[in-house]
């Protein structure tokens, strides 16, 4: 009896080993169409195609000292309201230093060869506390393509994101990455302003990238690039890569809709 139990046990253990070796999960590939209908997943190329004409490269010119500042903006309405950052208009600033508004202009890319239309812009609101600003395209004869807001899902860590930015004033360029962290509190670069509930994104941000929209894999706006960790602010030449900060869509909607700027979004 003892012998038979031993044989049976050995047999069962052998079966276990075979089971373990044989139950290698088979990968099932789910192909996702590039169709822009419904909930199709967008890759960077499709995100860019959808949002290129909703992105403005912004240039600010100061007649008093000849200084030029540049950044990026997102078109929110068909009549040309643009969301950007204070830094994109004023560069390094403190509230008390700003004495004059610049002459603002912008370019909107209209094709893959980089050709663009020029527009003029005016300041609607500057919010030093949040670092956000609203501009209005003053070319009233044109109809613009607004971004689509992501109002159904909040951003999550690890989520794919792509952006269109005017990095180094080289014109609009595409970058991509992932959401690294949520609920970050940070002192905005070159200011004494502390902001909270920022998203941290693993995305390249250079001078001029601020104000660029973050888009999810449905091509919808999930945030706006506000600030970054900057090698120039460190004491060594060890470069800092892809630590970029952004407001999420809730904060954007809140900023627009609690003010009285002549339009509302996300309703």
């Amino acid at each position: 009896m003892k012998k038979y139990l031993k044989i049976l046990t050995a047999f069962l253990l052998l079966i276990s080993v075979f089971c373990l070796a044989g139950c290698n999960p088979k990968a099932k590939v789910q192909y996702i169409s590039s169709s822009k209908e419904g909930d199709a997943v967008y890759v960077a190329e499709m995100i860019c195609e959808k949002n290129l004409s909703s992105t403005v490269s912004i240039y600010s010119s100061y007649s008093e000292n000849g200084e030029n500042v540049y950044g990026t903006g997102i078109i929110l309405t068909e009549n040309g309201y643009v969301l950007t950052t204070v830094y994109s208009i004023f560069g390094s600033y403190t509230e008390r230093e700003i004495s004059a508004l610049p002459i603002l202009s912008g370019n909107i890319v209209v094709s893959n060869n980089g050709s663009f239309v020029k527009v003029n812009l005016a300041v609607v609101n500057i919010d030093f506390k949040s670092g956000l600003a609203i501009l209005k395209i003053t070319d009233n004869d044109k109809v613009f393509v607004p971004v689509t807001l992501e109002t159904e899902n909040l951003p999550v860590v690890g989520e794919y994101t792509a952006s269109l930015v005017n990095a180094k004033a080289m014109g609009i360029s595409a970058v991509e990455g992932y959401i690294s962290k949520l609920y970050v509190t940070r002192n905005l670069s070159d200011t004494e302003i502390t902001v909270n509930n920022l998203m941290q994104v693993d995305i390249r941000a250079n001078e001029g990238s601020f104000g660029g929209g973050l888009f999810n894999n449905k091509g919808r706006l999930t945030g706006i690039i506000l600030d970054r960790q900057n090698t120039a602010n460190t004491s060594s030449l060890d470069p800092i890569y892809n630590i970029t900060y952004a407001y999420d869509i809730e904060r954007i909607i809140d900023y627009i809709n609690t003010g009285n700027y002549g339009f509302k979004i996300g309703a």
Partner: protein
Amino acid sequence: MKRLGKLFMLSAALILSIAIFAGCTTTVTEKVYVENGFVYEAENIAKENISSCLAIEVIYDSILATKTLTGSGFIISEDGYVITNAHVIYGDDWEGAGSTYPQNLKSITGTIDNGDGTTQSYNLTLVAKYNPYADLALLKMNLGEGETVKAVKFRDSSTAKYGEAVLMIGNPKGLGISAVRGIISQPSLTDNSSSPAKEYILLDIAMNHGNSGGPVFDKNGFVIGVAAMRYKTSAASSSDSSIDLAVGIGYAVPSLLVQKFISTLNLEGLEVEFSVIEE
């Protein structure tokens, strides 16, 4: 006997657990982005093209010193013509070098990664450098009698789009052939900061020293550009920490310029044809 009974029960429990586990995890869903019927898979593009990519080492030898330059290149014909950057051969002052053969050039070696942990090295000869409008040079592999090598396919760079996925294969930091994924940031950029102005494709990619001359493949595995340089700031060679460093901005010479370069050489049987995918 009691111990054997316990062992029996344990085995039975183990089998039951495995059976439940296997039942729950037989399928793992993986999302694959499909575009116009083609699947972008870096792995396949690398597998298909790795044997057409070379790690290049250029050695200069003079009485005063020995200098080594490293870069990348790729094969454009079965008889072993190779494209790289002019600056990989001539150094940073490639624009002013004219078309003259570089002085004290001792050897150019290209190494192919066989993908199985082994490599194969070839001697290369400098055939030509392009004019100052594009950072390109043509080399020729010294192949054996009747020996052929695998060449890449090209795509017309004027069809490039914002955000397109790309795969760059090169020899960063002289560490050997490796692949890096990125996207096209800007399909067409004119760089007016140098004279004459130059055309580039701008990339959002991790480009390092040594990637220069390497192919940039599109999502279908066609070469759309040649990795050439990255955005530089003076801080890269300075101890001034107040200077803002740019990150992740790479430049590639468009394939259209490679085609123009090759056509100016009038080499028999050598031309760059663009592949087209029917959509």
